[in-house]
């Protein structure tokens, strides 16, 4: 990712290779393409931003259908779309090929503070419990003829938020008591886990390495 972001957009060959790399990974991992596409829509606000960019800038410019487009702006806009898309595709690949737990383990290895990892793992454990509660509350509202239409309904939705907060907080307290009664002393026991084998390391670094190679070669060839 870092390699991608530092590559100047004018090295467009590199970008083609990056895209083919990430798409190869997506295909190899057999991710459903439609899902990947749907999830990439998340970057749309930034694409809009990028589309505006060619209209701004200084220096070299072109006249297209009555608009003044700046070379600088076009380049910058393209860069944002290209890099953003690569980033989003990369993150989607990561999240679709690794379980949330594996990602957490990874964060732990990357020396994210233990407390942060613990909070995140509690979050992952209870996300289903709480979203199920939320869904049942939604059905309960709908069953009594409620439909959120406008700002008038915000007060009711806020009551739902408040209830959700109180239920979550109280559950947090009960979980804490349950932990205490099983001898918790403030430090969560670490799960001993096997260190990754060299082969796995190789697989892990292969993609960034390849990307780096491409970036460098472009620069050298110029």
């Amino acid at each position: 990712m870092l390699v991608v972001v530092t590559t100047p957009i004018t090295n467009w060959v590199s970008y083609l290779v990056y895209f083919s790399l990430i798409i190869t990974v997506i295909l190899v991992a057999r991710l459903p393409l439609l899902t990947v596409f749907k999830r990439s829509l998340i970057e749309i606000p930034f694409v809009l931003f990028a589309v505006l960019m060619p209209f701004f800038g200084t220096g070299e410019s072109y006249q297209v259908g009555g608009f003044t487009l700046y070379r600088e702006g076009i380049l910058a806009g393209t860069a944002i779309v290209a890099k953003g898309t690569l980033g989003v595709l990369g993150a989607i690949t990561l999240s679709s090929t690794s379980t949330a737990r594996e990602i957490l383990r990874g964060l732990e290895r990357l020396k994210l503070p233990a407390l942060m990892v613990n909070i995140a793992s509690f979050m992952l454990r209870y996300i289903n419990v709480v979203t199920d509660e939320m869904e049942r509350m939604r059905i309960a509202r709908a069953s009594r003829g409620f439909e959120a239409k406008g700002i008038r309904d915000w007060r009711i939705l806020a009551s739902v938020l408040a209830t959700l907060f109180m239920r979550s907080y109280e559950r947090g307290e009960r979980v804490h008591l349950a932990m205490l009664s099983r001898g918790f002393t403030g430090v969560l026991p670490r799960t001993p886990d096997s260190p990754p084998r060299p082969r796995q390391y190789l697989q892990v670094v292969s993609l960034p390495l390849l990307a780096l190679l491409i970036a460098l070669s472009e620069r050298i060839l110029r």
Partner: protein
Amino acid sequence: MSSKPALLINELAFAYPDGHQALFGVNLQIAAGERLALLGPNGAGKTTLVMHLNGIHGAQHGFVEIDGERIDVGDKVGLKKIRATVGLVFQDPDDQLFMPTVFEDVAFGPRNMGLAPSEVEVRVSDALARVGMSQFVDRPPHHLSFGQRRRVAVATVLAMNPSILVLDEPSSNLDPASRRELAEILRDLPITLIMVTHDLPFAYELCERSVILAEGTIVADGSTSKILKDEELLERYRLELPKGFSL
């Protein structure tokens, strides 16, 4: 209206978006004023079926009719009417009670129906009186005991004057006295009642008729006492009377 069944389910089948099929052709007919227990093991599709009764899920195959009118989840006006006719009481009262006071919670449904404030007040006080919770009208639901919250949850639905009341595990987590009080409240309601439950003695106490739902179809339908006496049938569907219980 009186000749038509209060509820008619015909060939109802349903699969979740993830492909898991929960209902495989359910047929059921209930007359107005009947009290029916819907029994069955965990994962039999009971909750999925209940979600069809007021249009939370739409029928993918077959249909559901309330008082002779077919539920169409696309028809917003019709749906609103159905949801006023069929009242759903959830198993966990905390899912149902989200307003700051008991009054506002019970008033929520009637207000959504667009009733005048004076009419809303009448509805609220009637519904709370029916479940014996009138004195708690200004309390936050959060501060009530579990049994009291369950009763307020029933009131929130009664306030909409439904003609069919559907309850999911109404007796769960209640202490014995609260359980009996709830049974008395439910017995006195002049209303069609459908009760999803594991509590066979509770079903026996309240419902003349029971059906067993298993693997997405109705596998038994008859008088509650007859069904509960059929030990082989009960055992096949992981149902059993508690030790020491005799009909």
